[in-house]
C-alpha cells in the first residue's frame, strides 16, 4: 500500500468517522472537519505534477485477489492527475460551499458528508485504477453514492424517482461495461489497462474487438449522459445543489469522458471509434443545447447544458482518435482536438461549477429557481450577478474567458475535418462544423437566459418567497475562486499548457509521441481572421438575434409531442415492465396446482420425447424377457380396470376400494415373480392403509364435487397418456440397455457368508444399505411429528395471524 493507495482510501476511512464527529462536535458544522481532507489530498496530488509534466508515470500495486489477476493497482499519469486534481480541488470548494448551504441544525449532515466522501474516494479510485476490475468497482461506487446523494431528501417522491433513474441507467452502463472489460481481458489475457494498451495492435485484429468496444462505450455514454442515456441527469438535479455542482457537472459525469480518454490508446485505432464517439458526442451536444433553451428551471438549464458540454468534449475525443488511426497524417491537427478536449474539460469544470453555485445561491436567497418568477436581481445581488456573467459568458464562448479559447479550438477541429477527407467522409464532413455551430448558437442563447432573465428585467417580489439579498461571504468564496480561474485561464491559458494539458493529452494519444518529446501545446488568443473566429462571430450574431426574438420562435418547442420523448419512453418502459411482468406472471401463476402440473408434465413429455427422438434413443430388446402368461394378462386387466374405477368413482368408498384393488393386484404380481416376502409386505401395507383410509373418510363430510359428473378434459387426458407413454418407452429402453453386470451379484455371494443372513432382501435393508433404512425411519418419525403438529396446532384459531407473534 503506497501513498496513492491511501489517498484513494482516505475518504472512505474519513467517512467512517463523520457520524462520530457529527455527534461529538455537534456545535461545529461537520463540513469544517470534512473540508480538511480534500485540501490535504489536493496538496498531495500536486506533488505529482513534476512527475507527469515529463510524461513520466507512477505505478504501485497492492494485491487483492492475485489468483484472479485482480489487484488494487494505482497508476498516475497526466490524465489521472488532471482528474485527481479536479476531484479534490472542486471537492474542497464544494465542501466549503456546502457548509453555508446546508443548515447545521435542520439537515442530517452526517449522511450528506458520508455519501460525499464515499463519492470522492470512489471517483479517485476510478481515475487512479489501472486494473479494470477495481476500476469497475469504484465506478459502481460512484453510481451508488450518486444514488444516495440524489435521494438525500428521500421523502420527496421526485428525489427517489431521480435517484432510482440515475442508478438504473448508470448501473446498466456499468454492468455492460464490465462485460466489455471481461471481453477485453479474454482478448488480452490481462486486467491491466496499461498492458492492454501495450497489446493494442493485436487486440485490433481480434474478432471480439468491436464487441468489447461497444460494451465499454455503453458504459461511458451512460455515465457521461450521452444521447440517448442523458435522461437521468436532469432528474438528478433533485440532489442538493452542492451535489449537482460536484457530481453532476464537474466530476462524476466526466467519468465517461475519462473512460473514453483512458481507452483511446486501445480502441482509437478503429474507424468505428471515431464515428461512434464523434457522432454521438456531437449529436448530444446539439440536442441537449437545443433542449436547454426551453427549460424554465435554472438547474434544468444547467443540467442540459452539462449534457451538451459533455457531448462537445466527447466529440473532440472521437475526432482526436483519428490521429491514431492515420499515422501518416499531420498529427498536430488531430492532437489539437485532444488538447482542446482536455482544455475544455478543465474550463467546463470551472465555469459550470461556479454557475451551479450561483444557481444554488439564487435558490437559497429567493426560494425559487424558476426563471419565470425571477428577474431584476442585479441590484440585490451584485456579486452573484458578476459571477454569473463570468460563468455564462465563458460557457457561451465569449472572450476573454477560457471558454472562448476552447470553443475556438473546438471549431478549428471541426473545420479541419472537411479539409481532410477521412473515412470517406466527404459528404458527411460538412455536417460536423454545421452541427457544432448550431449547437454553439443554442449554447449562447441559454447562457444569456441564465444571466439576463434572472438578473435584468422586472423584479417580481410577489412571485418569490423571500426577500432577495446577497449571499453570505462564505457561500461566495467558492464560486469566486472558480470564476477567478475562468478569467485567469482565459487570459493566461499557457499556465496550463505544459503543466496539465500536455501530460493529459499525451496519455490519451501516447503512441504518436516520439520518445522523450512532448506534444506541442500552445494556446493563443489571436490567430488572425480564421474560420473559427468567423464562426464565433456568427454564433454571437445569431445568438443575440434569436435571444431577442425568443418569444417569436420559442413555440417550436410546443410542436414536439410530449409522448415521444425519451423520458416518456423510460417512464412508460418501466411502467410497462412492471405491469407487463405482473400480467405475465399472473397469467401463468394461476394458483391452481392443476395448472402447475400441466406445465410440469408438458415439459416432461416435450423434453424427454424430444431427446429420445433427437438421439434415437429407443431400444427394444426382448431377449432377456420372460414370456407373458395368462395370469399376467388377467392381472393387468384387473389393474387397469381398478385404476379407471378410481378416476370415475363418484364416492370415496368406491375409490378407496379400487385403490386397494390396485395394491392387491401389484402384490399378486410379486407372487408371480416369485418374491413372496415382498408380496407379503405389500399385502400388509395395502390392508392397513385401506382400513385407515376407510376409518378417516368415515368421519369426513360428503363432498358435493364428488357427486357431480366430471367433464372429460381432452388436454389433461393427452398429457396423462403422454407421461405414461414416455415413461414406458424409457423403461423399455433402459431395460433393453443393460450394459453391465449389476452389483447385486455381490449381495448374492456375501449375504450368507459375510452378513450372516439368509434373506437377501432383509440383509440389504438392514446391513448392506442399512444407512438408507435408518433415514427412512427418520422420515417416518418426521412425518409423525408433522401430523401431530398439524392436528394439534392451529395458530389462527386464537385470532393470532401474525406469524411473528
Amino acid at each position: 500500500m503506497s501513498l496513492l493507495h491511501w489517498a484513494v482510501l482516505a475518504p472512505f476511512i474519513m467517512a467512517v468517522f463523520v457520524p462520530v464527529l457529527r455527534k461529538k462536535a455537534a456545535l461545529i458544522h461537520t463540513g469544517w472537519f470534512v473540508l480538511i481532507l480534500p485540501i490535504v489530498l489536493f496538496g498531495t496530488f500536486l506533488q505529482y505534477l513534476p512527475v507527469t509534466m515529463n510524461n513520466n508515470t507512477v505505478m504501485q500495486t497492492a494485491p487483492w485477489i492475485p489468483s484472479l489477476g485482480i489487484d488494487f493497482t494505482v497508476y498516475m499519469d497526466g490524465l489521472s492527475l488532471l482528474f485527481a486534481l479536479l476531484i479534490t480541488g472542486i471537492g474542497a470548494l464544494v465542501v466549503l460551499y456546502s457548509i453555508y448551504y446546508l443548515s447545521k441544525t435542520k439537515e442530517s449532515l452526517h449522511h450528506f458528508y458520508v455519501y460525499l466522501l464515499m463519492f470522492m474516494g470512489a471517483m479517485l479510485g476510478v481515475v487512479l485504477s489501472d486494473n479494470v476490475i477495481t476500476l469497475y468497482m469504484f465506478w459502481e461506487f460512484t453510481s451508488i453514492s450518486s444514488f444516495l446523494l440524489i435521494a438525500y431528501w428521500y421523502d420527496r417522491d421526485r428525489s427517489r424517482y431521480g435517484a432510482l433513474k440515475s442508478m438504473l441507467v448508470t448501473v446498466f452502463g456499468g454492468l455492460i461495461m464490465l462485460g466489455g472489460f471481461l471481453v477485453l481481458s479474454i482478448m488480452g489475457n490481462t486486467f491491466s489497462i496499461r498492458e492492454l494498451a501495450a497489446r493494442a495492435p493485436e487486440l485490433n485484429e481480434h474478432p471480439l474487438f468491436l464487441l468489447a468496444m461497444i460494451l465499454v462505450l455503453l458504459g461511458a455514454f451512460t455515465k457521461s449522459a450521452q444521447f440517448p442515456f442523458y435522461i437521468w441527469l436532469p432528474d438528478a438535479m433533485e440532489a442538493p445543489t452542492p451535489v449537482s455542482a460536484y457530481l453532476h457537472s464537474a466530476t462524476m459525469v466526466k467519468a465517461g469522458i475519462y473512460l473514453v480518454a483512458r481507452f483511446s490508446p486501445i480502441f482509437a485505432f478503429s474507424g468505428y471509434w471515431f464515428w461512434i464517439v464523434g457522432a454521438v458526442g456531437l449529436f448530444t451536444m446539439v440536442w441537449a443545447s437545443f433542449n436547454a433553451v426551453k427549460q424554465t428551471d435554472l438547474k434544468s438549464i444547467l443540467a442540459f447544458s452539462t449534457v451538451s458540454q459533455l457531448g462537445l468534449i466527447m466529440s473532440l475525443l472521437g475526432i482526436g482518435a483519428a490521429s491514431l488511426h492515420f499515422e501518416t497524417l499531420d498529427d498536430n491537427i488531430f492532437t489539437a482536438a485532444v488538447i482542446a478536449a482536455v482544455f475544455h474539460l478543465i474550463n467546463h469544470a470551472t465555469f459550470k461549477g461556479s454557475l451551479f453555485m450561483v444557481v444554488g445561491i439564487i435558490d437559497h436567497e429567493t426560494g425559487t429557481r424558476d426563471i419565470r418568477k425571477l428577474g431584476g436581481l442585479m441590484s440585490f445581488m451584485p456579486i452573484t450577478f458578476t459571477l454569473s456573467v463570468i460563468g455564462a459568458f465563458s460557457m457561451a464562448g465569449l472572450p476573454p474567458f477560457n471558454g472562448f479559447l476552447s470553443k475556438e479550438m473546438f471549431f478549428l477541429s471541426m473545420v479541419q475535418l472537411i479539409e481532410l477527407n477521412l473515412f470517406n467522409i466527404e459528404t458527411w464532413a460538412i455536417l460536423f462544423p454545421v452541427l457544432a455551430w448550431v449547437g454553439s448558437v443554442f449554447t449562447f442563447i441559454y447562457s444569456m437566459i441564465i444571466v439576463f432573465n434572472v438578473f435584468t428585467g422586472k423584479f417580481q417580489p410577489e412571485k418569490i418567497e423571500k426577500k432577495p439579498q446577497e449571499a453570505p461571504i462564505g457561500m461566495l468564496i467558492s464560486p469566486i475562486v472558480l470564476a477567478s480561474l475562468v478569467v485567469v485561464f482565459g487570459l493566461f491559458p499557457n499556465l496550463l499548457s505544459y503543466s496539465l494539458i500536455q501530460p493529459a493529452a499525451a496519455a490519451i494519444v501516447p503512441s504518436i509521441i516520439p520518445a522523450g518529446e512532448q506534444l506541442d501545446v500552445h494556446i493563443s488568443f489571436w490567430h488572425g481572421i480564421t474560420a473559427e473566429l468567423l464562426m464565433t462571430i456568427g454564433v454571437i450574431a445569431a445568438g443575440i438575434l434569436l435571444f431577442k426574438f425568443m418569444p417569436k420562435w420559442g413555440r417550436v418547442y410546443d410542436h414536439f409531442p410530449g409522448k415521444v420523448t425519451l423520458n416518456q419512453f423510460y417512464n412508460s418502459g418501466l411502467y410497462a415492465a412492471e405491469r407487463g411482468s405482473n400480467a405475465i406472471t399472473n397469467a401463468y401463476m394461476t394458483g391452481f396446482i392443476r395448472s402447475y402440473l400441466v406445465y410440469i408434465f408438458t415439459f416432461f413429455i416435450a423434453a424427454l420425447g424430444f431427446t429420445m427422438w433427437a438421439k434415437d434413443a429407443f431400444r427394444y430388446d426382448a431377449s432377456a424377457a420372460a414370456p407373458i402368461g395368462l395370469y399376467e394378462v388377467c392381472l393387468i386387466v384387473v389393474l387397469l380396470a381398478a385404476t379407471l374405477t378410481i378416476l370415475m368413482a363418484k364416492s370415496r368408498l368406491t375409490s378407496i376400494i379400487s385403490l386397494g384393488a390396485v395394491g392387491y393386484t401389484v402384490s399378486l404380481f410379486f407372487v408371480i415373480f416369485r418374491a413372496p416376502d415382498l408380496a407379503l409386505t405389500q399385502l400388509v401395507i395395502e390392508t392397513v392403509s385401506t382400513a385407515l383410509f376407510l376409518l378417516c373418510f368415515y368421519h369426513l363430510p360428503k363432498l358435493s364435487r364428488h357427486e357431480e359428473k366430471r367433464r372429460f378434459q381432452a388436454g389433461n387426458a393427452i398429457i396423462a397418456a403422454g407421461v405414461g407413454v414416455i415413461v414406458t418407452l424409457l423403461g423399455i429402453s433402459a431395460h433393453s440397455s443393460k450394459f453391465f453386470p449389476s452389483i447385486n451379484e455381490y449381495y448374492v455371494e456375501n449375504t450368507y457368508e459375510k452378513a450372516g443372513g439368509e434373506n437377501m432382501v432383509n440383509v440389504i435393508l438392514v446391513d448392506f444399505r442399512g444407512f438408507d433404512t435408518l433415514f427412512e425411519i427418520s422420515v417416518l418419525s418426521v412425518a409423525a411429528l408433522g401430523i401431530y403438529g398439524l392436528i394439534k396446532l392451529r395458530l389462527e384459531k386464537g385470532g393470532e395471524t401474525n406469524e411473528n407473534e
Partner: protein
Amino acid sequence: MINLPILPILLPLVAAVLLMFLSKSVKAQRIVSVIASAATVLAAAVVLLKVKADGIQTIDMGSWPAPFGITLVSDMLSILLVLTASIITLCVVLYSFGSIGSGREAFYYYPIVQFLLVGVNGSFTTGDIFNLFVFFEIMLMSSYVLIVIGGTKVQLRESIKYVLVNVISSAIFVIAVGFLYSVTGSLNMAHISTRISEISAEPIITVLAILFLIVFGLKGGIFPLYFWLPGSYAAPPAPILALFGALLTKVGVYAILRTYTLFFYHDQPFTHDILALLALLTMVAGSIGALAYKDVKQILIYNIIIAVGVLLFGIAVMTEESIAGTIFYLVHDMIIKAGLFLLGGIMIYITGTSDLNKMGGLIRQYPALGWTFLIASFALVGIPPLSGFTGKLLIVRAGFETGEYVGAIVVLLSSLAVLYSVVNLFMDVFWKKPEIPLPETKKQTASLFIPAAVLVILSVLYGVGTEVVYPYVMQAVDTLIHPEIYIDAVLKE
C-alpha cells in the same frame, strides 16, 4: 479411515432425536438446538480443513466396500456447502427464538429444523445415488412439516400444492434411479461415473441426463418447473422461508452440478445446450417475476429463481472458470438469501405486512436495518467487493470465452433486474413516507437483527476475502473438472 465426514449428518440427527424428548421445555430445546448447530458448524469446519489438507474423505458405511455398500464422500464442494448450510441453520435457529412463536416451538419446530439439516448435509455428502434420494426424502418431509406447522389457512392451502409437486418429483426420482441402475448396474456414483464413460456414446445416457435434470430442476426451481415455488415459499414465516430459500433449491442445484460433472458430461453439445437455454429462460422468468410484485416475500422469492438461472448457466458453460464461478456464487447465494429473508422477516415483523404499498419510512427508527439491507441488496446484485461479484465475474467471463455472448449478457442484465427489484423494495420500505405514520415506540428487533446481520457480514467478508477462499474453491473445481479424482478416492483403484 476416519469417520469425520459423517459428523455433520450425525450431530443434527442425534440432536433431533434428543429434542423430540424435550418438547415440554422450550428453553431446553433452544439450548440444545444452539449447541447442536454450533457443534455441526465446528465439525464441518474440521472436515473442511481435513479435506483441504488430505484431499477427499470417504467412509464406506458398514465397511461394505464401494461400490457395494453406501459410501459417504466429502470432497471440497460437499464440505463447503455443508459448512455453509450449517452456519445458515445456526443463524436461523438463533433468529427463531424471537420470531417463530411458542406454539411452533412446542410442536417440534426445532427437531424438524435439525432433521432438515440432516437431509441437506446428507444430500451434499452422500456418494450413492439412491442414498441421495433418501436424504432428499428426509429433507422434503421436514420441509412439508415446516411449511404446514402452525396450520394457518395460507399454509394449509399452499402446503398441499408443495407436497403434491414434491411427491411427484420424488416418484420421478425413483424412476430415474431405477433406469440408471438398469443401464449401469450400480448405485455408487463414482462407479456409475466410470461405467458411463465406457458407454458414453449410448443415447440412453443423454435421455437419462434430461430425466435427472427434470428431477433436480423441480427441486431447484428452474424454468419451467418452478411454478409451485413462489406460492409455497411465501406461506411459512420468515425463518422457515430463509431455510427453504437458502438451502432447498440449492440442494437441487448442487445435484445438477454433481451429476452433470460426474455422470453426464459426455454429450455436452446436447445436454449443456439445453441447460444453457433453460438457464436463460430461468433468469428471464425470475426477473419478470421480481418486477411483477409489490411484496417483500415475493420479490425476494423470485430473486431465488434468478440466482438459480445464473448458477445453471455457470454449469452449462462447463469450463474450469465457469465451474469456479458457480461454486463461488452458490455459497454466496446461500448466505445472502438467508440474510435477506431474515431481514425481510424483520421488516414484516415491524410493519405487520409484507405489502410494499402499506410500508414506508422505517429508516428513521431502524437505520441499521435499512443500511444492512441495502448492503445485502448490493451483494445480491454483485457489486464488488461484495460477495456476489466474484462468482458472476467468473461465470460471465467464461460465458464470453466460450462464445455464449447472449447468455453472458443476460447474466449481466439480470443483475439489473435484481437491482431494480431490491432497491425499489428498499426505497418503499425505508424511504417512502408511510401512509399511516409509524408508532413512536420502536419495536425491539435486536435478537432478530443480530443473526441476520451476522450473515450479511459473513457475505461481505466472503466477497472481500475472495483470495482466502480461492484455493478452497479451486480444489472443489479440480474434483469436478477431473472426475477421476473423485472416482479414485471412492473406489481406491
